[in-house]
């Protein structure tokens, strides 16, 4: 094997043996089964012009490739991210930086390994789709159709996610959470291309910048069916109504050309990644423990009034007896480490308390996003800062730490709980949905943080679900904290059950580690 192959193989190996890979694979398979609904239940994956699209190879390939692209385009980035942080933390970064390996080789190896790793998810997704085709399909399995569609739709987005992961890891200021958030915004922004194509049918340029391929797909469907009334995901349909079939030869030369150009553009990311690679120079990038100080100092300066308010909290926690004091200490630690979180918590609490009831869904939508980003870092924090053994040796050990950190997540969700309280009088189901969602998300964050010793898997799944939920306002199951007002008793029970299972799994995991 040559150096490039070994580097790429190493990238795959390092990630493949992580527990987060297994969790993500299970999530991918679960998503596939949820997305390709059984039409016998009155729900289908794809509707065009109010007509159900029959589950042929092209339809299933089309729909599943897009759902997989949405997920892997976002979660793939977070799964690939963090290699530089790992290298810095372990000290390997200095060794790698001091080798003669060129920037180009390192960048290419990491990108190639990232693409190969994400291709494993594509294979898992394809396998699940084929299994569902065998169960629910309405036509023969045409493997070539699947492969064509998957290549057309998924290669550019996977290449883009891997390219961004390498680029963001290689530029010092983007190594941490700032890079994570920036990518999420970039991921959301590409859907602007879809709007551009829908509103201006003749415009081609936006499609080049749409790595997800949605705009190309919508354009192809429009050319065939002369409509822009599409629905992808889980949609109800009239079983007695007409159906339609997507032709096997859906993709035109133009579509292939655009996707090839988009793929080529994703490769351009590797040039700045190699050019600006920090090579682990301590002048440009530092381990997490050392990196935080400057940002914290800057935030402290900017948020001095907030920091003053937060300062008495650790002292107060010392005086509060028992478990409550420990939880308060945990909350105090989160707020002291990041005064901006304290500011967000204060602003969220005020907004949740005084906002008009009509604005509360908006408050909830924003507050849950911020809260999710904050709480995903609580459980892995000790491990990432080398304090895992110390806090694990405190009275109550690892199990008590799990309970303490999970409880702190709930306390930090104060704005969400206030909104739930205000909903409880007029919309009790919505209020319970909010409570169930907060419990489930806090438990999932604790579980995944403990299993993977990182925050990114939860962050990826959470942000993906949040974004999809925002765009599916009528889907009860996706109304995670009641912000869409679509939650039903059944969906609330499902979230509650999922939360209980996640909590129990997290608890069992902490007991096993104890």
């Amino acid at each position, binding site marked *: *094997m*040559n*150096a490039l192959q*070994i*580097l790429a193989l*190493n990238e795959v*190996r*390092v990630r*493949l*043996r*992580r527990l987060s890979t297994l969790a993500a694979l299970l999530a991918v398979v679960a998503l596939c089964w949820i997305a390709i609904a059984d039409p016998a239940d009155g729900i289908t994956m794809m509707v065009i012009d109010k007509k159900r699209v029959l589950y042929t190879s092209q339809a299933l390939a089309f729909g599943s490739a897009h759902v997989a692209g949405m997920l892997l385009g976002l979660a793939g980035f977070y799964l690939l991210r963090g290699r530089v942080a*790992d290298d810095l*933390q*372990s*000290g*390997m970064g*200095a*060794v*790698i*930086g*001091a*080798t*003669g*390996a*060129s920037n180009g*080789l*390192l960048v290419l*190896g990491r990108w190639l390994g990232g693409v190969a790793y994400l291709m494993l998810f594509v294979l898992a997704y394809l396998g699940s789709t084929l299994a569902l085709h065998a169960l629910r399909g309405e036509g023969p399995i045409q493997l070539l159709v699947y492969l064509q569609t998957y290549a057309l739709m998924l290669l550019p987005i996977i290449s883009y996610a891997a390219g961004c992961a390498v680029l963001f890891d290689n530029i010092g200021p983007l190594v941490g959470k700032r890079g994570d958030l920036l990518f999420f915004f970039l991921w959301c922004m590409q859907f602007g291309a879809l709007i551009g194509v829908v509103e201006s049918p003749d415009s081609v340029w936006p499609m080049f910048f749409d790595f997800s391929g949605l705009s190309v797909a919508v354009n192809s469907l429009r050319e065939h069916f002369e409509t822009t009334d599409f629905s992808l995901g889980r949609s109800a349909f009239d079983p007695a109504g007409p159906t339609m079939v997507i032709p096997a030869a859906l993709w035109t030369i133009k579509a292939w050309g655009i996707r090839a150009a988009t793929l080529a553009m994703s490769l351009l990311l590797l040039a700045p990644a190699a050019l600006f690679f920090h*090579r*682990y*120079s*301590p*002048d440009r990038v530092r381990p997490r423990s050392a990196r935080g100080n400057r940002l914290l100092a800057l935030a402290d300066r900017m948020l001095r009034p907030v920091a003053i308010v937060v300062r008495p909290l650790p002292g107060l926690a010392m005086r509060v007896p028992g478990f409550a004091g420990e939880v308060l200490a945990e909350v105090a630690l989160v707020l002291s480490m990041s005064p901006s979180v304290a500011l967000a918590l204060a602003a969220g609490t005020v907004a949740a308390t005084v906002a008009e009831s009509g604005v509360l869904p908006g408050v909830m939508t924003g507050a849950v996003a911020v809260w999710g980003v904050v709480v995903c870092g609580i459980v892995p924090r000790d491990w990432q800062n080398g304090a895992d053994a110390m806090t694990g040796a405190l009275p109550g050990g690892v199990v008590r730490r799990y309970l303490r950190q999970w409880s702190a997540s709930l306390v930090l969700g104060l704005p969400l709980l206030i909104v739930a309280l205000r909903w409880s009088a007029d919309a009790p189901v919505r209020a319970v949905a909010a409570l169930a969602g907060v419990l489930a998300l806090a438990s999932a964050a604790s579980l995944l943080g403990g299993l993977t010793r990182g925050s990114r898997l939860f962050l990826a799944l959470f942000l993906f679900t949040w974004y999809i939920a925002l765009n599916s306002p009528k889907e009860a199951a996706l109304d995670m904290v009641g912000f869409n007002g679509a939650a039903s008793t059944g969906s609330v029970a499902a979230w509650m059950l999922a939360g209980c299972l996640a909590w129990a799994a997290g608890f069992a995991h902490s007991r096993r580690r104890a």
Partner: protein
Amino acid sequence: MLELRNVSKTFRDLKAVDDVSLKLGSGVVGLVGHNGAGKTTLMQLVATLSRPTAGSILFDGKDIVRNPDAMRRRLGFLPQEFGVYPNLTALECMQYFAALKGVRDPARIRHLLELVNLSEHARRPAASFSGGMRRRLGIAQALLNDPDILIVDEPTAGLDPEERLRFRRLLSELGFGKLVIVSTHIVPDVESIAGRLAIMRKGRLLALETPDAILQRARGQVWQASVDAAEYDALRSRFHVLQAQRQGAQVQLRVAHPGLPVAGAQAVEPTLEEALMAQRYALSEPVAEAA
């Protein structure tokens, strides 16, 4: 082989390395100094991880600040914090670094794993290794490209005495034909293996000397005495006490001082650590001279 010319490195207000110049050939060089003396920063500069704020670093006459690859191809580096990827075996770790260093020969990996006594553990996850085994794996990766310069930072931190001895012997043997720079603040680590000591304090290079020269200068400055416990308290503030051991009502002292510190004190043969202390080399702040 390696030459530093007026090298400085500044982090904002802090001068971590201050106008250091030295020339080094093959052999083991001990880089010693107190915590924060600038040892790690100096090693990072030589390892091309960091660029000096001023000055130049030449390796075989080539400026490695401008052309870092000239150094990297011939460098082996083991940083103080050498962790391992939690999911890779020792063999896979070595294969990874071999790829990075352009080493194509699998026999080289086997040879090095044997050299550091890890061949039996090659297929074990490196994360399950003890601290000593990880350090040995670290030195094996550093030697993959048969480097001309080997830089090791605090190589024995956290090792048990047996591992420490083994490590010292290995470094000593490597120094027969290469330049081995060993940074440490544990003087006994380099006492028996270093041909020369580069001594740093507050970013400056104070001396580059053989251990014998340092010992020779300290002779007659290290004293041993036995004093009352009450007397010891008074002496402690006046003299640079290197060692104190209570024995009943008496305290057995070793003191660094240019002249006879107390009546009855006897001049003794200093250890290298005491010699450095006597010459204020190992202190971050010079001790006030005795009244």
